[in-house]
């Protein structure tokens, strides 16, 4: 079945440390891939997206993600985390084909320690 897996439910990092949030998708074809952020009391905001081309994509707020077909992964990274990055992060995918529905992972809650 088409799905998106975020293995880490909750991650805590220190401010200034690097961050990597994992995302794996299940389907073989190249999907459209997204990362969204949901801050407390805020709506969902797109951080970045991948459709084709360069497998390393840059997003807003200093985030980047790398598409690795061999690993069916699209991990989100940031070299130095800020306290304001504390939020819930969702990976999402459109597999295409018969339906273009947007499927979300279960999310990773990021806490940032001073």
């Amino acid at each position: 079945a088409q799905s998106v897996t975020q293995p880490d439910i909750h991650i805590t990092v220190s401010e200034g440390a690097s961050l990597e949030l994992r995302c794996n998708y299940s389907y073989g074809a190249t999907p459209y891939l997204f990362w969204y952020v949901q801050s407390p009391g805020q709506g969902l905001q797109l951080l970045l997206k991948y459709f084709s081309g360069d497998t390393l994509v840059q997003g807003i707020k200093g985030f980047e993600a790398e598409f690795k077909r061999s690993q069916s992964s699209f991990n989100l990274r940031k070299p130095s985390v800020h306290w304001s990055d504390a939020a819930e992060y969702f990976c999402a995918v459109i597999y295409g084909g018969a339906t273009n529905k947007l499927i979300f992972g279960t999310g990773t809650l990021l806490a940032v320690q001073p």
Partner: protein
Amino acid sequence: GAGVSQSPSNKVTEKGKDVELRCDPISGHTALYWYRQRLGQGLEFLIYFQGNSAPDKSGLPSDRFSAERTGESVSTLTIQRTQQEDSAVYLCASSHIGTTNTEAFFGQGTRLTVV
């Protein structure tokens, strides 16, 4: 409008009553999604509309849930005979599809509380 608009922002209803939630997508967006987000949980896909194609209803949890969309404009999500487990934030999103502009824009959601 400039963004996706959902109404009402909050709704408290008694168990067994019907509720109707409204979503106004971004003008020109052919795709429209509904999701449910329970407290502390992820986004659960409910239904997807794409242009004039038949909607993808594969995420609707029961026959108490239904949704309609008029052309490429307003959508309503109806929950009949509400139950306490229906309490959640219901999110709507709209998007272009099939181009590099594909990006789902989300509304602020409707917080539904069934008492």
